[in-house]
């Protein structure tokens, strides 16, 4: 892969990526994306931005192994560790099973890992405390607010101790204030757990605040049309520096230039 290391450290290993990838939903239909190259390095926070309908969720599903690529290669280079999954997913719609409690939903992902009942229960408590939801273990999803549901969705993804987390616009349906809280909580978890995160969003500000690197998707069939390294910096909402603003400007024009659907 040709993309430069952007963490400021020596080049880290690519843990997940696609090369020359293409995907179409039906035989004979136009591909959603083709010739797509994308890579995610260990511990890296990468955002994938682009207008709605450009194919971000489709790429994410392919990276998650939920859809098979039509062409090109997917590589996943993470050690398999007993009692964990290599990658895990947070959905835009939180996707909690309404017939399971909060604790049951988190346990759902863990149940396939061959752990004892006690270990599973410990995992649930561990991630609930990570997302500040310890008191909610026995609640039903229908009792939760949108922000709380997303916290549980994140907890469920973390409970399987992944090295890679794929997130599809996880905060797009929560109010602005909650969204900021969730963003900061996510950054805390990301650095504590040394996760590689691929974060799909259509919000450029969200992407520039969170990411080490931002990929812009555009065109039809879609490709990565812009790759913006954010460099190592302190994340500070109050002082958005000029470099960051310039980056946002470039991303915005990359999005606008391709599909005329800037945000």
């Amino acid at each position, binding site marked *: 892969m040709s993309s430069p290391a952007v963490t400021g450290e020596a080049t880290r290993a690519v843990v997940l990526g696609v090369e020359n990838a293409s995907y179409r939903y039906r035989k004979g239909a136009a591909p959603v994306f083709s010739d797509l190259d994308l890579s995610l390095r260990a511990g890296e926070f990468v955002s994938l931005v682009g207008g709605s309908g450009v194919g971000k969720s489709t790429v994410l599903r392919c990276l998650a192994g939920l859809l098979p690529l039509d062409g090109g290669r997917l590589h996943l280079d993470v050690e398999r560790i007993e009692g964990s999954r290599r990658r895990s997913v947070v959905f835009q719609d939180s996707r909690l099973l309404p*017939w399971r409690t909060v604790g049951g939903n988190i346990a759902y992902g863990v149940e*396939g890992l061959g752990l004892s009942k006690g270990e599973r229960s410990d995992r649930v408590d561990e991630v609930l405390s990570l997302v500040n939801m310890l008191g909610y273990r026995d609640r039903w999803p229908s009792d939760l607010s949108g922000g709380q549901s997303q916290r549980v969705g994140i907890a469920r993804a973390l409970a399987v101790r992944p090295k890679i987390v794929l997130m599809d616009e996880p905060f797009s349906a929560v109010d602005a204030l909650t969204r900021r809280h969730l963003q900061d909580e996510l950054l805390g978890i990301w650095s504590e757990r040394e996760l590689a995160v691929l974060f799909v969003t259509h919000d450029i500000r969200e992407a520039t605040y969170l990411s080490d690197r931002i990929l812009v998707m555009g065109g039809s069939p879609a490709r990565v049309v812009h790759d913006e390294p954010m460099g190592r910096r302190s994340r500070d909402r109050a002082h958005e520096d000029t470099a960051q603003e310039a980056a946002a400007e470039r991303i915005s024009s990359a999005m606008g230039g391709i599909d005329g659907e800037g945000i």
Partner: protein
Amino acid sequence: MKRISAIHAPAGKTSEDEHSVQTGNLLIHARRLVLGLAGLVVSVGVWKLAYEFNWAPRGTLPDPSAIFPALRGEIESGRLFPAVGSSLIHYAWGLSMGTVLGLVVGLLAAVNRIFDDMQRLLARILRPIPPLAWVVFAIAWFQVSHAGAAFVISIGVFWVNYFATYSAVRNVDPRFYELARAFGRNRFVDVTFAITLPGAASGILAGIRTGVGQAWMTLIAAELLGVPGIGQEMNAAAGVGAYDAVVVYMLIISLIYGLMDFAFSLGEGWLLRWRPA
């Protein structure tokens, strides 16, 4: 834990709102009860008039006030409880066989393309045949037995559950199946118990509940093939002009069904307790 939940408890209605809502509900319930009883009294009154003025052919309409004595008579003669017990045996067998088969076939048809296509035409052909038309075969195959009656009962119950399960499973949100795959929980048995059945539960339970009623509908007629039970007692009573006893058995059926449906609704409420109020 307690403290946190208390802080985050939904700050919805104030206690004052709740209070007035409760009083309102009480009033509605009280009104329903009073009017319901009034409706009952009026219809028994009409029945009494019909009896006194011989609106029906003489001797075919019992006196409402003869029903309780008739009930005592049926109990004391030792006919009532054996009849009810016998009916419950083939009711239980017919209901459970029809329910289990309907559930399994409905589920398989809903999740398996080949099986679905194979059964569709067959279902089209068999579905319109009334359960009672099978009485002939019930006698031929099982003679006069619990099994014969249970067989007839199970047919109606089967169709109800088959259709309810089929459509409920078809309507499970496909995004839940994607979730299962995302967490590597996509083995058929896993998916069936973790996603499909709970996702379809409310539709499946509605089908089972309909079946509980449907089974009574066919039970009485199924007993006409001579299997001991409530239906046979009714027939025998009608044969000697004891129409008050017939009414006793009708009310017994209603009572048993009412109790079963109530018990079922409790179980259903518990199973679906996750649904928002």
